[in-house]
């Protein structure tokens, strides 16, 4: 599958993935915006999601940290985007930005997933968080095989 391209968005480093999915946009929209479905594949469990632009998302990492995000775009079934804030409220130049676009493609749709990164110079904590997340994922994969 797609390896993910390194791109820059407004000069910030970002990763972009494109995938063809053999499901309708409506169905994929549900999978990416419904808290239960989203929790199933997103790295953090979603405990709350106000489905509108300006709405709040609460993520629980299962280790005592609650992450909040603000939805910046909510255009069903086309565009879903949010800014993920620093969990400790530390000031930083930018939030992480995640963006999911859905386009009709053949009988299914094309998903374009973009993760615009926090400034790397202050990303140490974030990096550790993701590493822990990866470890958890590997464990999960090992136990489901």
């Amino acid at each position, binding site marked *: 599958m797609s390896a993910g391209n390194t791109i820059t968005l407004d000069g910030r480093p970002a*990763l972009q993935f494109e995938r063809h999915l053999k*499901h309708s946009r409506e169905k994929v929209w549900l*999978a*990416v915006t419904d808290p239960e479905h989203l929790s199933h*594949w997103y790295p953090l469990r979603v405990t709350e999601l106000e*489905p*509108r632009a300006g709405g709040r998302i609460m993520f629980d990492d299962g280790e005592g940290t609650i992450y909040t995000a603000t939805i910046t775009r909510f255009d*069903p079934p086309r565009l879903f985007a949010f800014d993920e804030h620093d969990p400790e409220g530390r000031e930083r130049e930018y939030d992480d930005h995640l963006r999911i676009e859905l386009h009709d493609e053949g009988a299914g749709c094309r998903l374009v997933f973009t993760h615009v*990164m926090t400034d790397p110079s202050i*990303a140490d904590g974030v990096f550790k968080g993701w590493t822990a997340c990866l470890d958890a994922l590997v464990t999960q994969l090992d136990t489901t095989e």
Partner: protein
Amino acid sequence: MSLSFDALADPTRRRILGLLLGRPRLVGEIAHELEMSQPRVSKHLRVLRDAGLVTVRPEAQRRWYELRAEPLADLDAWLAPYRRLWAERLDLLEQRLETMPDVLEEEPRQAKEQ
């Protein structure tokens, strides 16, 4: 590595790198593109050179500023775990979609703000 990231932390310097991504440029061109004074651009170019992100190639009376890709490989390495993470997470999304019932196009989940 941290030196490159400090150099990259400034939005103007990221814009300069963006310009140099296309092709080598003269300081005057960069100043024109960014609508900034030449001395200010030179100052930013100095930081980028110190960080090893930019080199200068003299040619007759002109000095071409070029992007140097090696430090950017650090950035790429920094992104590698994310790349793996999301590739795997998107696999999970596909698996989830397989188990979900198809939704009718007539009734997409609507949650518009009034």
